[in-house]
C-alpha cells in the first residue's frame, strides 16, 4: 500500500492480552478523506483496533502506520494528528463545557484556544450551556461536547468507537448531522459500531470484524442495507 495515498495502514496487526488473542493479522488501508465503518458484534475486537490506532495500546506484532507515522515509534506524532470519540466522553464532569475544551486545547498546544473553543462549542450547539458543569449535561450533549474535544486541534484523522452508544433517537440524529459535517471536511474517519443502519449510510467503505479478523471489506456505494444485513448475520453466525 502506498503511504501517500493512505492515512491508515495496518499490516498483519495482532494484539493479545495474556492468553487472549484479540486481533489476528489485521490488514487494512484507509485512503485520505475516506470514511470506513467497521462493524462487528460485541467482543469482535473493534475497541481493541481503535485503541491501537489511538496509541492507547501497542500491537503485539505487525505494523500500524497512521499519517505516515509508525505508532510504535512515534506515538506522540500520531496523537497530535488524531481525534478520538468514544462511547465515553473523556471529559471532566466538574469542569464547565468551556473549561473542558480549553483544558484539552492547552494539552494540544492550540493557539487562540479560547476563541476556537467558543467557536466549536457554538458549532456543536451548546452555546447556551457553555459555562455549565458537564455533569449536568444529557448524554447527547456530552457526546456533542466530546466532538468539540476531539477536533479542537483540527486533526486530519478521526477515530470513533461506538459513538452512538447510549444516545436516544434525537441525540443520535444530532450526532449523525455532526458526523456528516466532519466528513464534509475531508477528514479520514474510522468508526466502529454494531449498528448497521447508522454506519452504512455515511460510509465510503465498510468492513466486518469478527473474532479478531477482518472477514469482509467492501465499498459502501451500492450496498443495500437489507443485503448487507444478510451478509453480516451470515458472517457472525458462522
Amino acid at each position, binding site marked *: 500500500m502506498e503511504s501517500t495515498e493512505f492515512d491508515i495502514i495496518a499490516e498483519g496487526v495482532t494484539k493479545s*492480552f495474556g492468553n487472549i488473542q484479540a486481533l489476528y493479522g489485521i490488514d487494512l488501508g484507509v485512503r485520505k478523506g475516506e470514511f470506513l465503518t467497521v462493524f462487528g458484534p460485541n467482543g469482535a475486537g473493534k475497541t481493541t483496533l481503535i485503541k491501537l490506532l*489511538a*496509541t*492507547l*495500546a*501497542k500491537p503485539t506484532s505487525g505494523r500500524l502506520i497512521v499519517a505516515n507515522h509508525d505508532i510504535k515509534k512515534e506515538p*506522540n*506524532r500520531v*496523537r*497530535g494528528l*488524531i481525534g*478520538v470519540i*468514544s462511547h*465515553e*466522553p*473523556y*471529559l*471532566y*464532569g*466538574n*469542569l464547565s463545557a468551556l*473549561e473542558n475544551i480549553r*483544558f*484539552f486545547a*492547552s*494539552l*494540544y*498546544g492550540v493557539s487562540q484556544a479560547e476563541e476556537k473553543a467558543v467557536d466549536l462549542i457554538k458549532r456543536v450547539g451548546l452555546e447556551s450551556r457553555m459555562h455549565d*458543569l458537564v455533569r449536568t449535561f444529557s448524554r447527547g450533549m456530552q457526546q456533542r461536547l466530546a466532538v468539540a*474535544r476531539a477536533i479542537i486541534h483540527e486533526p486530519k484523522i478521526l477515530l470513533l468507537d461506538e459513538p452512538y452508544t447510549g444516545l436516544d433517537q434525537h441525540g443520535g440524529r444530532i450526532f449523525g448531522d455532526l458526523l456528516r459535517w466532519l466528513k464534509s471536511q475531508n477528514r479520514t474517519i474510522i468508526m466502529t459500531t454494531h449498528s448497521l443502519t447508522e454506519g452504512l449510510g455515511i460510509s465510503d467503505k465498510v468492513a466486518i470484524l469478527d473474532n479478531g479478523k477482518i472477514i469482509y471489506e467492501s465499498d459502501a456505494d451500492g450496498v443495500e442495507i437489507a443485503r448487507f444485513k444478510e451478509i453480516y448475520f451470515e458472517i457472525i453466525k458462522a
Partner: protein
Amino acid sequence: MKKIWAIVWKDIIIELRTKELFSSMFVFALLIILIFSFTFGFSVEFIPVAAPGILWVAFTFAGVLGLSRSFAIEKEWNSILGLLISPIDRSYIFLGKMIGNMIFVFIVEAIILQIFVLFFNYNLFVNLPSLLLVILLGTVGFVSVGTLFSAMAVNTKLREVLLPVLLFPIIVPVIVSSVKLIGVILSGKPIAKAGSSLQILILFDIIFLVICTVIFEYVIEE
C-alpha cells in the same frame, strides 16, 4: 511546562468545586490529632518526643486518602484516556498530577500544624524554616511514590486497600527520617544532630522522583 500547569489547574478547579480531597483529608487528620491529644492529655513532657510521630501519622494517613482520590477522578468518566490520547509526554501527566497532589497535601499539612498547636498547646514553630524544609522534603518523597501507586491502584477493585499496602513499606525511610529530623528540630538542636537522616531524605526524593516519573508511562498504559 504549560501542559503540566494545565493539569495542575484542572485538578485545583475540580477540587475547589467538589472539596472531596480536602474534606476527607481534613476530617481524618483532625480525628488523628484529637485521638492523640486524648491519649497524651496535656503531659507536656511527652509532647516533644511524641509530636514528630503524631504529625507524620496525621500527614501520611490523611495524605493517603487524598492520593487514592487523585486518579479516581480521572476514572469517573474515563477522562484519563483523554489525557493519554493527547500528544504530551506521560511524564508531564505524572508531574502535573504529582504537583497537584503536593499542593493539596501541603495545605492539609499546614492546617494539621495549626490544629496540633491548638490541641497540644505546644509551640512547633521554634525553628520554622527547618521544620518547613523537612516537611517539604518528606512530602515530596511521600507524594511522588503515592501518585505513582495511586495510578497503579486505580484500575483495581481494592484500590483504597491496595494503595496504603503498597505505599507504606516503600516510604518507611521517608517517615523514619522525617520523624527523626522533626524530633531534633523540636528539641532545639541543629539539624545536623539527626545524623544522616537529611541525606537519606534528599536521596530518597531524588531517586524516587526520577524513578516514578520514568516508570509512570509503563504503569498507566494497557
